[in-house]
């Protein structure tokens, strides 16, 4: 993680990602995505089942219990950025080392 503070490029990249997931995400289109729209139009959306973890704290990019939509989406995005960064660094660094 230290390299992300030392290296300007990595730091800038993470800050952009935090901005996108933590702030810009609130302004994302809420229309169904391509697959969902096709499923709806062609009549197979009803075959979709709720994910087993649809009741999880972060389900559908919101934090359960936070009513402020902007805060809820932004915080879920921020948590996503941190978890993704930690997990991917663990994986990629261990792969780079094992040679």
């Amino acid at each position, binding site marked *: 993680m230290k*390299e992300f503070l030392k290296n300007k490029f990595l730091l800038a990249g993470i800050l*952009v990602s935090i901005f996108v997931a933590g702030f810009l995400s609130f302004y*994302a289109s809420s229309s169904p*995505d391509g697959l969902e729209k096709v499923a709806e139009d062609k009549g197979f959306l009803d075959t979709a089942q709720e994910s087993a973890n649809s009741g999880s704290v*972060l389900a559908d990019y919101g934090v359960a219990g936070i009513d402020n939509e902007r805060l809820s989406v932004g915080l879920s995005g921020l948590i996503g950025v941190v*978890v993704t960064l930690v997990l991917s660094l663990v994986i*990629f660094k261990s792969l*780079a080392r094992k040679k």
Partner: protein
Amino acid sequence: MHIPDGFIDLPTSLAFMGISAVGVGVALKGAKSELSDKTAPLAGLATVFIFAAQMINFPVAAGTSGHLLGGALAAVLIGPWAATLSITIVLILQALLFADGGLTAIGLNVFNLSLVGVWVSYAMFTVVKKLLPKGKGAIPIAAFIAALVQVPIAASSFVFQYAIGSVATIPVSTVFAAMFSTHVLIGIGEAFITSLTISAVLATRADLVYGYRGQGKQLEIRQMVNRDSI
């Protein structure tokens, strides 16, 4: 384009989980030779950026949105092996943490976006790059076309899965026509986000772009070595 549980029957979903597991296993091996201490943090950053960018659904037509898939972006930035892992990490976290994409559908989604998406993009990028004049300018153009093509192909890959194991009885041809045309539009958004992001990285740290390897400074060094040996 995250498939929820229920669209595709369980046997088909499990079969694709097996195929995807094999694919990701191969990618783990491939990524070992692709990654170094210098590029591993960049692969982490690319993964984080794709996660963040996927939260931004952009409108494409009346009542329809799309978001970045990221296969072309990741393949050009960090190479196809690491890109396969990168998209897989994003998909697994989205399904587990955010209930985005079904749990039994993980194999289907990894197959479409991590395997088909990344490798179609990489093949397309390589071909287009060869056809264009050498230089920095070719990279965002080749990435644009790779991203553009990737989305309807990944959508077709879903239709392939639908043809094998759909729960609904809507004809495959109907689903294909709708999926393909919708995702051609989403592909345009994907292409712009991909090529703009790659242009930004090329402008600041071209040495970090996998798809530009061996064309920048490294080439100059090689020429100098040759001159010395003469």
